[in-house]
C-alpha cells in the first residue's frame, strides 16, 4: 500500500453468507447503534447499518432461504450527496460517503434519494440500559434524535490504523484486522472482504480482476442506476440450479 490516496471498498460474497447476523451485531456494538426493540421493527424504524435481507425461494417443503447483506455502497456517484442542502453528507477524498452529524438538520432528502435504503433517521432519542452505558465506543459519536446516520466503513478504525501506521512509519497492511470494519472482522465465513481499490495488489482487486471476467460472479447492486458503487457483490453459486443453467 504505497499509494498516497485510498479508495476504500468492499467485496461481499453472497455465496459465503449464512445469514448468521454476526456482522449486524458487531456493527451495532462498534458504532453505538441504539438497541433495536421489537417495537422499532414493527414501526419500521430499526437502525441497522448493515442488514441481512432474507428472501424465501420455492414452495414448501422445498424452501430455501437466500441472504444478501446490504450496507452503504459508498457510491462514487451517490444520489444522496447532491440533495443535502447543508453538506451534511459528502464524498471525502478516500472514496467514503461520509455523514457529518453536526451539520444535519434532518430533511431526510438523502434517505429518499438512496436506492439501497441504507440511510437511517433517528426518530427517537437513543437510549441504552444503565448496564450497557459503559460499553459505548468512545471513538464514535452518539447520535441525537433528528439526524441521519449510515455506515461509515468504520471510519474511526481506518483513522486509528492510519494514525498508528504514520506514527510507526509503516504502511497500512491490506486485510489488517485493526483496519477492517467490525462487520468484516466478525464474519465467520470471510464473506466480507475490505480493502483499497487504489492498491493494485489488494485482495479485493484480485477478486475483482478474477470475477469481473466473462463468467465471473461479480456485480454491482442496482448498478443500472449509475451510482457506481464502491462495493461489489459476488453471486451465489447455486448447485441445485446446475442442471438447468449448466454451470
Amino acid at each position, binding site marked *: 500500500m504505497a499509494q498516497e490516496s485510498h479508495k476504500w471498498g468492499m467485496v461481499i460474497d453472497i455465496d459465503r453468507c449464512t445469514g448468521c447476523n454476526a456482522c449486524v451485531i458487531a456493527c451495532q456494538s462498534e458504532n453505538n447503534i441504539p438497541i433495536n426493540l421489537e417495537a422499532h421493527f414493527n414501526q419500521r*424504524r430499526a437502525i441497522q447499518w448493515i442488514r441481512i435481507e432474507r428472501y424465501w425461494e420455492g414452495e414448501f417443503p422445498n424452501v430455501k432461504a437466500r441472504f444478501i447483506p446490504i450496507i452503504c455502497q459508498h457510491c462514487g456517484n451517490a444520489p444522496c450527496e447532491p440533495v*443535502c442542502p447543508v453538506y451534511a453528507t459528502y464524498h471525502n477524498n478516500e472514496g467514503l460517503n461520509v455523514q457529518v452529524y453536526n451539520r444535519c438538520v434532518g430533511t431526510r432528502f438523502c434517505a429518499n434519494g438512496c436506492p439501497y435504503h441504507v440511510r437511517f433517521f433517528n426518530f427517537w432519542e437513543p437510549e441504552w440500559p444503565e448496564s450497557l452505558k459503559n460499553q459505548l465506543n468512545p471513538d464514535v459519536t452518539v447520535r441525537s434524535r433528528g439526524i441521519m446516520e449510515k455506515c461509515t466503513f468504520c471510519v474511526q478504525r481506518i483513522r486509528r490504523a492510519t494514525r498508528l501506521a504514520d506514527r510507526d512509519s509503516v504502511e497500512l497492511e491490506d486485510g489488517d484486522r485493526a483496519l477492517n470494519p467490525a462487520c468484516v472482522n466478525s464474519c465467520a465465513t470471510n464473506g466480507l472482504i475490505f480493502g483499497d481499490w487504489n492498491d493494485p495488489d489488494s485482495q479485493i482487486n484480485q477478486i475483482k480482476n478474477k470475477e469481473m471476467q466473462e463468467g465471473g460472479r461479480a456485480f454491482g447492486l442496482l448498478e443500472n442506476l449509475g451510482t457506481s458503487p464502491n462495493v461489489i457483490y459476488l453471486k451465489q453459486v447455486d448447485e441445485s440450479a446446475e442442471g438447468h443453467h449448466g454451470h
Partner: protein
Amino acid sequence: MLEHTQLTDKELNDELLRDILTMPKWWLPAVLFLAAIVITGYSAFGYMVFNGLGVTGLNRPVFWGFFIANFVFWIGISHAGIMISAILRLTQAEWRRPITRAAEVMTLFSLAAALHTPLFHVGRPWRVFYWIFPYDFSRGIWPNVKSPFVWDPSAVGTYLIASTLFVIVCLIPDLAILRDRAKNKITKFIYAQLCLGFRGTTRQWKLQIVAGILLSALVLPIFVSVHTVVSWDFAVLIGTEGWRSTIFGPYFIIGAVHSGVSAVAMLMALSVWIYGLQNYIKPDHFDAIARLLIVVATTWFFFFFLEWVWAMFTLESPEIALRELQVGPWPWGPLFLIFVITSFVIPVPLWMFRRFRRSAAIMFFTTILVNIGMWLERFLIVIPSLMRRSHLTFDWGSYSPSLIEILIVTETFAFVALGMLLFAKAFPLVPIFDMKEGMRNRHLIKVGRRVIPATIREGLPHHYYNKEHH
C-alpha cells in the same frame, strides 16, 4: 360581456367597508373556532419537537409523508394570486377586478401555511437557519446550491416578498379611503400610517398604477420558478420510481394553477354568501372563471395522462409495480379513483353547461371537489413512490399518518381561513379603487341595433355611445 350594475362611489364605499367599520355577529365565534384549531396544531407541533419525529407515522423507507404533500398543496394554492392578479391584469380581463385582492391575500396566507410544514417536518427545526439562509454563519461552509432544498426557500421567499408588495401597492388607495372614514382616532392614525400619505394626486395615482403593472410583469418568472423548484424536490432523485420524471416541472405548475384558480372560485362563492358581495361578484364572473378552469383542468389532465404514458413506456418492473400500487390495493386504489373523479371527471363536464357555470352553489361544490382531488394528487405522488416497490422487495414500505400529523395539516387550513378572516376585518376584500376604475371605464355602446355594456379605456367615436347613458 359582463353584467352591469352601475353603482355610485358612495354606494361602493358604504357597501365594501360595511364589515370593516362594523362588527358582524358571526365574526368572533368563527375567529375563536379557527384560532382554537390553530392553537391545537401548534401544540401538536410542540409535542412533536419535544418528543421527536417518532410521534409521526413516518418510517423507513417512507421518510416524507403528510407534511410534504401538504406543502406542495399549499404552494399550488398560492399560484392563484399570480394567475388572477398578474396574468389577468396584463391581459386586461375585466372580470378579474372584484376578486384580485382575495386571490392575492389567499396567496400570502397559503404561502405562509406552506412554509409551516417543511420547517415542521425536519428532524432538528431549531437548526433550519443553516439551511434556509444563503449565509455561512460560523460553519465556514455555504449551503449546497446543487440541492433543490436550497432553492425552495429562496423561490418561496421571493414569491412571498413579491406578493406582499403587490398586496400593499394595491391596498394603498383603499387604505386612504379607510383613513378618511375611520371613526375613532386610533384606527384613523393606523390607517394614516399604512396608506403612506396617499391623497389621490395625479402623480400618486400614476406611481401606484405603474408599480402595479411592473410588479405584475416582474412576478411572472416566479410563477414558473416556484413550483418547478418544488417539483425538482422529487424529480431530481434517480432511485425513486414515480418521482424521476422530466415532465414534473410543467405538470406541477399546471396542477398548481388548477387547484389555485379553483380555490379562488370557491372564495368568490364564499364572499357572496358571507360578505354579501352579490353586487360585485355576479354569475358572469363565475362564468368567466369556470371557462378559464375548463382550459386549465383539461391541460392539467393532459399532463397527468402524459406522465402515465411516459412512465409506462419504459416497462421497467419497479415502475410498473409502483403504478400497480397507485391504482390497486386499499387505500391507494380507491384514493386514486376519488382523485381522478373529483379533480376532473365531475367538475369539467359540469362546467360545460352555462347554467351550472353561473351558479355560485355549483361552482362552490365543484371547486371544493377539485381541491380535495388535488390534495390527494400530491399525497399519491409523495407516498406510494416512497413505499419503494423496487427490486429490493425486503424493504417494501408502508405509511399511515399519525394523529399529530393530521392535527398539524388541519392547522394549516384553519390558519389560512383565520388569516383571511382577520385580513377582511381590517381591509376591504374587494379592491374599491379598482372597482371604481372599472365602473368609470364602463359604457353602454351601440353596435348595430344592440346596446351592450363595454369597457373602454380610450375614447371611441361619438356615435358609438348610447345617448341615454350620458
